[in-house]
Structures are given as structure tokens and as C-alpha cells.
């Protein structure tokens, strides 16, 4: 038995934290079945009756409580995603960082989540959502028209309502229908009619009904890398549009209501309005499910707790067609959240949904499955749990926390694989961090622009560095300042690429620096964003370049840097959640030391920095402005998608080896630079799974 385990390169039980609920692929029969059932029942109240439905409000946030860490909060969200994935629009919300910009953060997350793939074959959740809404609006329109009694029209209405995604798919019939819809959306009198149909169903969109329909059509009926899609996404993210983008979407000038010179508060307010619009439109299609996970993150900060409470209160009071789920560890919730939350906010949470531990029979199932995934046969699995080992783990208890069980099983595995080896020391923070970086690297969705993570870096990681005072400012864009007696660095968080806003940012940066250059102003950019300044800009480019000479830095992060930064916040969050064997303060201290080169790089004046300290961020020009292509080949990396043949080679190689180091796969492909491409192929294959380890990533073959 020992030799079987000794041969395995990966401990099957070490993967004991769910970072990505969407990746949950296995659940033990009966474990936390009641909590799941409660969530599903609550969700069903949003899907009663035929579409379109009246907007449904007054849904309290469902509070999922774990008695301690490791009872499966995030796993439950994953099961929830699986159970209703084709009936809901699923949004997984990581902790926000700025209490003043909660809606900006949630909207950005929402749009990023909307762009993620959908369970029913269409490309993204947003494509399903927009086609679903437009199909039902069109059906309403047809049912209201002069030929509504024609059998052909009645059939079309029926089909649109029953199969909106097929009807607006890629068939010749769909093309005719889509063109017909596009014509209606371009006709002023028709669009007025459509808007009034929305209102007749109590779908109120603050007078922007026509804009919403055109934006959704701009996304639904265009190519994945088209300009219209880019513009539609910007509008949804409450970013201002350039004139040509307004034209592309055929919007009225007034519908471009995100102003270039908006303050953070105004952007937050508009973000709230967009999110509310998405929710009310869900009357026509799938309700939203917002999952607020990792709430332990808010615990240390009263302002964040208050913001969370206010956000949940607002969602309950003003947003329709959604189910909000909030997960928490009981003791954190009781000690660090609830005491600082206003009673009015507390009342917006449901009675707790309590998670349960795993029992002996369920433990057997889980351990067997984990071992089977690694080609360990049933007899060896029985031996693994035999000789009273499993019963002894339960000892005096009927149940154990799932992670506790997995940790004990990991220990058992180690002792069987290497019986004479001493128990390993606690995993070092270096290794835990390296694993986290590899996890982010293996998941492209986790590499996208996150203002929360950047804010966390400049606010939390910088605290205490070289006598710095970190404070918030009342500036319009540069809202965080690192201050020393004679020097300051300001930070703005802008993910958009509107030239007027960037001109304003540039002007503010010059002003902050002053004639004697006592400050610098930094704006971070990540590879998934358009490069600044855009190649097509004229006057704005001149203003920005002038500002760059006077202290503005557009700090372009490479993919590796994004992975490092996001991994840092995730590691800290893991400590706060009790997912790793370190407390938050220790992790933070370690991260502050680890990120010292970063702090050094961004704290001094540009001119004083040696190239080794700062690679000086030349303005990167991404050749294509198309978002999809950008995502495929982010700036600052050599990431390339694999060809079909290469994907075939990867699948064949891993299926033969069952478990293999990614470096071996790269050798087989004959190109070390294809690492990210291989990881993307793994993400897209149901048979492949990545196991991030500190030094490398193992790829595993699984029977889907």
C-alpha cells in the first residue's frame, strides 16, 4: 500500500480550500444537504411563474454560518452554482476595500462575472442574460402588435419565450429575427414602444429604457471582439463613452451619463444605478445570485462592516430579482461584524443557515473519491481508512469539520507514503504564497483588474513602510496618499480609458506635483485593460505625456505582478478565514517584507530610481483594442493560446501520464513560453485539473 502512495507526486488531500466556487466538481452525498436545500428553496421563490415576471423585491440576504473554519462555505456556494447555474446569473463577490465605493467595486465584479462562461453553452452569462431579456421584450412587442393574432407570430412568440438562446443563436432563422430586432431598436417610435412595454411590466430604468435595450443588443448581437461589445461593457461598468462609442451603440448623448469629470461618489452612485438596472431587467430572464464570501476580511474595519451592512440593506430594500448570500464564520461574525453593524442593517439578514460537519460514512466517501481521482484502487483506499484510523479521527464526536478531516487525511497520506519520514514542519509562508501565486496563474478570471486589490496594496501593505503616513484625500481621482514630511505619492484607481477622464487625471497629477515636484501620482494598469494613452488619442496623449514628465506614472503591471498582488491579498484573506495555519497579523508582516521592493519602487521620485528598482513603466501600446484578444494576449506577458493540435497533445499527454508536472508538458510541446496557454487549455477542459504547488503546477487527468 505504501508504494502506491509513495509514487504519487501530489498529496490528494492537500487541496482543502475552495478558492473558486465555480470549480467545485464533487459533493459528498447528504453533506450540508439541508443548507443547500434552503438556499435553493429561497431561490425558487424568484422563479415562480412564467417569464417575464413582476420584479420581486424583499428578499433578505441568506446568511450561511460555519461554526468554525473549514465547514464548506465556499464549497456550498459552488454546489449552489451547480444546482441553479442555468437558471441564475451568478456573481461571486470578493471583499471590497473602500467603503465609499462599494457599488463601484460590486458593479466591476458583476460585469467581470457576467463575462464568465455560462452553463448552457452560450459564451458568457452576459450573452445569455442579454439575449434572454431581448427575446422576451421582443415577444412582448410581437404580442402587442397589429398582427399578434397571426399563427406565425404566435408561434414565434412561443419559441422566443421558450428558447430565447436558441432563437437568438447562430442559425439563419435567428439572423432574420436579430436583424428585425435591430431595425426596431434603431427606429425611434419603435424603441419608445419597447420602452413603454418595459414600464408596463414595472421594469423602471430611470428613463434609460431605450439605452439599456441598445446596450444589451450591442453586446448580444455582435462579435466577441467587436467594438460594440467593448462599448457596451464600458457603459455597463458605468464608464463614460467616447463619442464614437456612443455612435456605435446608437445611444442618445444623454444616455452617456457617466461623466468624465465625475467624482468617486458620483461614479459609485451611477454604479449602483447600473446594478439596479441589471437586477430589474432580470424580470425578463434569470434572477441574480450575489455571493458575498470571505466576510472575515471586513472584520477588522468598522467602516467596512458598516458599508457591508448598508450594502445588504440597500440590496434588500431597493434591488429586485436577486438572491444575496453572505457567508461567515460564526465567531468572526459575532465578535467582529455584528457588534459594529446598525440594527437596521442586521435585520436584512435571514435566520442563519448553519453548516454541518462530516460524519464517518461521508468521510469514507470523500476520502475514497479523492484517492480514486488519483487512480488509487478501492482496496488501497480501504487500507488507507482501515485499522481503525478513520474511526479514531472521529473519537468522541459524531462529526468533524471537512477541512479537519482533509488535513488529517493529508497527514495519514504522508505517513503512508514515507513511513520513516519525520512529520513535516508547518508549511512556510514562502510556500503558501508560491502556491497562491500558482493558483492565480492557473485561473485567468482571477487575473483581471481589481481596484480593491490595488487599494489594499497601497493602504494596507504600505502601512508602516519607512515612516509613511497613509491617508485618504478629498481629491477627485487621487484618493490615497503616501505622505512623508517632504514627499508624497498619490494613487488613483481608474480602470477605464476615456480620454477626457485621463486628461483630467493628468491635470490633477500635475497640480499635485506642483512646480517644485513635491509629489508623484500613480495610476496602476493591468494587462486586461486598454493601454494608456490609447494610440488614437491626439490632444489627450500630449497632455498625458506632459504629465508623465511632471510626475504622473501609469504603472503597467505585468501578468506575473498581477498574480503576485492578487495572491498576496488572497493569502491574507486565507489567514483571516483560518484557511492556513497562520494568523492575519503574521501574514501581513511577512507580506510587507516580501513587497518591500514594490513599496520602494513606488515610493520614491521616478528620477531617483535605478532601473533595477523600477523597470520604469514605459507606456505599453497594445496593438489591438479588442478586449477578447487583449485577454488572450495580455500586455507584459508572452501568453499565447494553444493551437488545436497543441491542445490535443496536452490532453493526450496528461491522459497517458495521469498526473504530470506542467514542465514536462511544456517540454513535450517544445516551447517553455506556452505555460499560460497550457493553463488556459486546462481551464477549458473538464478532464484536466491543475494542482498548484509551491515550485510548479501538476496537471491531473480526471474522468469527467
Amino acid at each position, binding site marked *: 500500500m505504501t508504494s502506491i502512495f509513495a509514487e504519487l507526486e501530489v498529496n490528494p488531500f492537500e487541496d482543502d480550500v475552495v478558492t473558486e466556487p465555480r470549480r467545485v466538481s464533487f459533493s459528498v452525498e447528504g453533506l450540508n444537504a439541508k443548507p443547500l436545500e434552503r438556499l435553493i428553496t429561497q431561490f425558487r421563490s424568484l422563479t415562480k411563474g412564467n417569464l417575464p415576471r413582476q420584479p420581486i423585491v424583499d428578499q433578505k440576504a441568506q446568511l450561511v454560518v460555519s*461554526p468554525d473554519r473549514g465547514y464548506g462555505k465556499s464549497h456550498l456556494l459552488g454546489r449552489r452554482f451547480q444546482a441553479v447555474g442555468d437558471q441564475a446569473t451568478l456573481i461571486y463577490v470578493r471583499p471590497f476595500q473602500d467603503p465609499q465605493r462599494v457599488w463601484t467595486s460590486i458593479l466591476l465584479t458583476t460585469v467581470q462575472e457576467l463575462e464568465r462562461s455560462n452553463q448552457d453553452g452560450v459564451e458568457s452569462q452576459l450573452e445569455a442574460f442579454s439575449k434572454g431579456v431581448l427575446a422576451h421584450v421582443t415577444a412582448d412587442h410581437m404580442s402587442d402588435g397589429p398582427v399578434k393574432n397571426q399563427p406565425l407570430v404566435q408561434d414565434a412568440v412561443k419559441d422566443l419565450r421558450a428558447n430565447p438562446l436558441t432563437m437568438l443563436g447562430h442559425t439563419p432563422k435567428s439572423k432574420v429575427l436579430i436583424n428585425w430586432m435591430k431595425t426596431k431598436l434603431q427606429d425611434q417610435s419603435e424603441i419608445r414602444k419597447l420602452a413603454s412595454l418595459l414600464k408596463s411590466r414595472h421594469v423602471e430604468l430611470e428613463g434609460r429604457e431605450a439605452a439599456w435595450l441598445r446596450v444589451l443588443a450591442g453586446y448580444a448581437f455582435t462579435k466577441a471582439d467587436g467594438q460594440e461589445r467593448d462599448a457596451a461593457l464600458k457603459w455597463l461598468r458605468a464608464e463614460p463613452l467616447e463619442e464614437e462609442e456612443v455612435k456605435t451603440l446608437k445611444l442618445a448623448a444623454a444616455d452617456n451619463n457617466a461623466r468624465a469629470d465625475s467624482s468617486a461618489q458620483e461614479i459609485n452612485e451611477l454604479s449602483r444605478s447600473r446594478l439596479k438596472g441589471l437586477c430589474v431587467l432580470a424580470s425578463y430572464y434569470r434572477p441574480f445570485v450575489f455571493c458575498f464570501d470571505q466576510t472575515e476580511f471586513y472584520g477588522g474595519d468598522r467602516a467596512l462592516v458598516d458599508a457591508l451592512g448598508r450594502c445588504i440593506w440597500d440590496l434588500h430594500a431597493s434591488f429586485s430579482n436577486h438572491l444575496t448570500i453572505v457567508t461567515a464564520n*460564526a465567531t468572526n461574525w459575532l*465578535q467582529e461584524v455584528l457588534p459594529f453593524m446598525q440594527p437596521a442593517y*442586521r435585520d436584512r439578514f435571514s435566520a442563519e443557515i448553519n453548516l454541518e460537519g462530516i460524519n464517518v460514512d461521508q468521510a469514507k466517501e470523500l476520502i475514497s473519491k479523492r484517492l480514486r481521482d488519483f487512480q488509487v484502487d478501492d482496496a488501497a483506499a480501504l487500507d488507507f481508512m482501515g485499522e481503525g484510523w478513520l474511526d*479514531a479521527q472521529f473519537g468522541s464526536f*459524531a462529526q468533524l469539520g471537512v477541512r479537519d478531516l482533509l488535513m488529517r487525511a493529508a497527514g495519514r497520506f504522508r505517513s503512508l507514503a514515507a513511513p520513516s519520514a519525520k512529520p513535516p514542519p508547518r508549511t512556510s509562508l514562502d510556500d503558501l504564497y508560491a502556491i497562491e501565486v500558482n493558483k492565480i496563474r492557473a485561473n485567468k478570471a482571477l487575473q483581471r483588474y481589481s481596484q480593491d486589490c490595488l487599494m489594499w496594496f497601497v493602504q494596507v501593505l504600505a502601512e508602516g513602510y519607512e515612516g509613511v503616513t497613509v491617508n485618504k484625500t478629498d481629491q477627485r481621482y487621487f484618493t490615497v496618499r503616501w505622505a512623508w514630511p517632504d514627499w508624497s505619492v498619490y494613487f488613483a484607481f481608474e480602470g477605464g480609458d476615456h480620454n477626457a477622464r485621463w486628461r483630467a487625471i493628468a491635470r490633477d497629477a500635475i497640480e499635485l506635483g506642483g512646480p517644485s515636484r513635491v509629489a508623484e501620482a500613480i495610476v496602476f494598469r493591468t494587462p486586461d485593460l486598454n493601454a494608456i494613452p490609447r494610440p488614437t488619442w491626439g490632444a489627450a496623449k500630449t497632455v498625458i505625456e506632459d504629465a508623465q514628465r511632471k510626475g504622473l506614472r501609469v504603472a503597467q503591471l505585468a501578468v506575473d505582478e498581477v498574480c503576485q498582488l492578487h495572491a498576496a491579498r488572497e493569502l491574507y484573506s486565507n489567514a483571516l478565514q483560518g484557511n492556513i495555519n497562520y494568523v492575519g497579523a503574521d501574514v501581513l508582516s511577512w507580506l510587507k517584507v516580501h513587497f518591500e521592493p514594490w513599496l520602494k519602487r513606488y515610493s520614491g521620485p521616478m528620477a531617483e530610481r535605478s532601473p533595477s528598482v523600477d523597470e520604469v513603466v514605459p507606456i505599453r501600446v497594445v496593438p489591438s483594442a479588442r478586449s477578447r484578444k487583449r485577454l488572450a494576449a495580455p500586455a507584459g506577458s508572452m501568453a499565447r493560446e494553444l493551437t488545436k493540435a497543441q491542445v490535443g497533445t496536452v490532453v493526450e499527454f496528461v491522459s497517458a501520464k495521469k498526473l504530470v508536472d506542467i514542465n514536462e508538458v511544456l517540454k513535450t510541446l517544445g516551447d517553455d513560453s506556452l505555460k499560460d496557454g497550457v493553463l488556459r487549455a486546462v481551464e477549458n477542459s473538464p478532464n484536466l485539473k491543475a494542482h498548484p504547488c509551491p515550485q510548479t503546477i501538476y496537471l491531473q487527468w480526471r474522468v469527467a
Partner: protein
Amino acid sequence: MAKEWDSFKLVEYVKAAGAKGRTKSKLQEKIPKVMRSQASSILGELKSSGAIRGPFKNRSDYYFAPQFAPTREQAEDVIEKPLRQAGTRLTARSDLEKKASGFHRTFFNDALASLKGEAKIVELQGGNKTTFYVHRDAVLEQLRLPSAVEPEQLATMPVQQATVTLDDIRPIYNTLKAEQGGISTVKIYDIMTRLGASKEDVHRILLREAKSGRVSLHPASTVKFPSDVMAAGIRLQGQADLLVTVVLKEDV
């Protein structure tokens, strides 16, 4: 007659047998002929409602009223008692197995594992692959260690009249739960303080009930409690974390 027949009669019949239990065939005989084909589902329903327990194998399948059903705890007693009496003399596994006769045999492996897990007995390997057992008390005595009462032992100590019961704890627990907004994870310290009971008494009943699954005990891995709250926690041998909170199951 079939229409008037109530499965409750079957429960009464099982109850009347006490610790002897009733065989499946005896119970089938008590079911009216017209309904006998549904015997399995009737027994299944009674079992899932908790009115009877079983089947326990001992040549035939036996059913018991819940209060008379054999348990793992009984099997543990059957194993632990002779080991304690044996002192430092080693007892072979086969000898222990002989003592666990009848229904206790069903629970033998579980009981042995549980006793080992709680460190109440120690397993030793002989040269000829024979497994021996010795009670911890004998080992502690030999090592001249004080035989302090461990929390795990508290759970198995006989309940005396003055000690706390779960019925004493439940109303206090419910009040505390309501006070903290309906969150069911309650600090052991709070229960102890409100109840005015000794730590040992509270620990004893909580550990006993944790065994049966009526309560679950938890560490607080992600917050720092004051020292008095921690001091009220339960420390299990071989485990780093103190168990400081408790959840009482509503439906058990």
C-alpha cells in the same frame, strides 16, 4: 381489522421485549396478513421516525425500542472493564472479541477505535503479529503520572444526580442564541456562567452529547477570545485547539 391496525402497536410490542428485542419474523407476525407484504416498509418507516432501532444481527435480525437498543458505548464498557481489571497484564484482541458477544459484536471494531481515539486504551503489537491492549490507567500508574481526570473521561463518568443535563443547558443555550441574533454557535463560557455549574459538569455533559451527535463542539480558529473564555474550553488530548463553542442540534 387491517384498517384499524396501527403501527404503534408494533412499537409497544418491541418496547415490551426490553433489552431482549424482537426478531423481524416475530414483528412480521404481528402485522395483519393483508398488510404483511408491506412489512419492510412499515419497519423502515418506524425506524426512520426513531420509534424503533435496528436491525441488529445476532443470528436473526433484531429490533429494539430506542431506550433498550444496544449501543457502541455499551460495547466500549464491555471492552474497557476487563482491560482495567487486567492492570498491566496484556489482553489479546481475540480475548476481547470473545467478551463482546451478542449484539456488542456489531460495535466491537467501532468501540475499539473509539477507545483508542480517546486514549483510554493503548494498543501494542506482539512479535507474532498479535495485537494486545492495556488500559491507560495501568500505564499512567507505571509511569507514576497523576491520574488526573481528562475531559474525555469526564464524558464517560457515571452521571450523578446533581450533575447537569442537556435539558438544563438547552433553555440557557436558546436564550444566548437569541441574544446573539439567532447564531447557534454559543460560547461554552457563556453557558457555564449563566448556568452557574462547574466546568467539569458542563464539559462532561457536552462531551457525552457530542458522542451521540446531539451537540457539536468547535474551536474558534479565527478570533482571539479573552483568557476566561478560553479557560472554559475543552482540551482534547493530542489536539492543539481548545473547543470553546458549542452548537445544540435542534432536530436530534
